[in-house]
């Protein structure tokens, strides 16, 4: 195994009118290739902040972050944008599909940003949708799909570019129990069959249960870490 993401002594302090908010305090964290890790903790513990820092969406106040061997320190906005596009897949809690595009077009869209030709785009998008049992929904727009279906399309969009890392921020926040279970099984399949490294920020015990490693954050620090061994499965 080799390291996909590494945080060294990362702090993130937000300015606030009353007092600075320490969202992360000297966090050391690493993510190995092929892992399925969940960041857990109560609201305000820093799990989403850590996810965003690793996803090059937020800049640490102090410390350093590396993604796939690339240090994010000093990268310009455009370089960070390109890094997100090439190396990271995102699944957000509110599905966040483009409403005017069909499922296939939403999946293709990310490849268009990468400049991939239309024939390859279509082939890869259909393959990604089929692999997630979404082939029949390819021509539907988001408002014609259920929340669970939209989230699965978001996962298809996230994996279609073969990212080194898939970041899922509260992916089950808007889903019922059954749909959450389906989503977790899907993420596990993506992790095991495609070898995609997954990092989720969640306070849903069901999602945590599917991760091989659970990292508990409290007050911006890593408080505990549990690794599921083959025996415990």
């Amino acid at each position: 195994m080799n390291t996909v993401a590494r945080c060294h002594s990362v702090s993130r302090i937000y300015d606030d009118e009353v007092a600075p908010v320490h969202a992360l305090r000297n966090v050391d964290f690493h993510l190995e290739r092929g892992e399925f890790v969940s960041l857990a903790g109560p609201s305000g513990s820093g799990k989403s902040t850590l996810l965003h820092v690793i996803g090059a969406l937020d800049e640490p106040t102090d410390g350093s972050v590396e993604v796939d061997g690339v240090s994010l320190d000093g990268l310009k906005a455009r370089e960070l944008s390109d890094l997100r596009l090439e190396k990271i897949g995102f699944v957000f809690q509110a599905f966040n599909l483009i409403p005017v595009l069909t499922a296939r077009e939403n999946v293709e869209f990310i490849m268009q940003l990468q400049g991939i030709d239309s024939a390859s785009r279509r082939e890869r998008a259909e393959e990604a949708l089929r692999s997630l049992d979404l082939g029949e929904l390819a021509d539907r727009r988001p408002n014609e799909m259920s929340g669970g279906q939209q989230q699965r399309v978001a996962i298809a969009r996230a994996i279609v570019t073969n990212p080194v890392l898939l970041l899922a921020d509260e992916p089950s926040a808007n889903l019922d129990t059954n749909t959450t279970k389906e989503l977790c099984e899907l993420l596990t399949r993506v992790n095991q069959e495609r070898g995609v490294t997954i990092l989720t920020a969640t306070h849903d015990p069901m999602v945590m249960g599917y991760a091989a490693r659970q990292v508990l954050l409290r007050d911006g620090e890593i408080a505990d870490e549990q690794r599921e061994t083959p025996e415990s499965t």
Partner: protein
Amino acid sequence: MSLVKVGQLAWRNLWRQRRRNVTMLVALSFAVMGVVFLNAFLRGMTAQMADSAVNNMQGHVKVLQPGYLDDPGIGKSFVLESEWSPEIPAGQMQGWARRVRVPAVIMSERETRGIEFIGIDPAQESISFVADWTIEGEGLQGPDDRRILVGKSLAEQLETVAGRRLVIITQGADGRSREAGYRIAGTYESEFSAVEKLYVFTGIEAAQALLASDAVTEVSVRLTDAKHQPTVLESLIATFIGLNVFTWQTLEPMAAAMMQLSDAMIYILFIIIMTALVFGLVNTVVTAIMERYREIGMLRALGMRASAVLLQVVAESTLIMLLGVAIGTAAGGGLCLWLSDGIDLSAFAEGLEGFGMASNVLVPVVLPGDLAFVVMASVVMGVVASFFPALRAVRLNPLEAMRH
């Protein structure tokens, strides 16, 4: 991202807020249609004013003795060889006319009036409004016709009719007062009552006989197209050394100024109307961006570059502007086509006369250059105006936008 995809996405985004964008589109289309029609109306008006000025016995270019304009009379005349005609390339000249034009007094048994006594060769006057008039009685038959043609309004003032005699008094070439009696061949009706009251015509040789001179006071040249004016002007200046050669713009400065004013009006109207519309467009773009904060944030988070977001927003407003311009231009052009037989403005006849317009029917004139200006300037204004709200979208922090 390809421009085709940007355009496709922009098109679909436009339909997300159908009512708002259709309202904006209708407003844009009406504005552009209005601008196209107003331009055509103004162009038609100026074309008619220019035509009237040229028709008013000025021609496009006129030769005069220096000082004639300040002190018109046979003393400010010049001799023209009997075989002379302008050396202007074939196809450039519609015609030319020589005239004797002097101030005079006309008397009937009851009234006396100040007039301009004009000796013409009727065959040459196809270049002026003289050929278009309706004449009651008879017209002049040739340069040696000793009868006179009087305006209907003047005839009413003088309380006379065709067939009666009038006396004309003027100053001869020798400086002495000369007078002669003339029979009225007919009365003419002009579009301008002022013309009817002022101009009295006779054969040029008859006028020269009264003035005891074989000179003329003016030579007027009418061209087939105003674009030949500069070259013909130069040619006549070279021919008539020592004389003044004027364009109609110099001789009719009011009409020329009105034309320039119309040119400026076209731009002023466009800027006023389109600026108001562009503010509406900016408002629409800003609203669209605010509604899609989260979506734009998500796109930025996924890795869409700032330039692509900028392009996307500008593409949407450009698309709506292009649609508005296309519909408005087509509608404006169609309206002008529908009114191509002319707009009846007879209710404003007196006002139009003041503007130097001979006809009460105004035909809109659509110039390709005006259409190109409206289309190009509208699109440029749309792009520039949407650029600023688009910058706002670009500056969005992806995380903050997604939390919006």
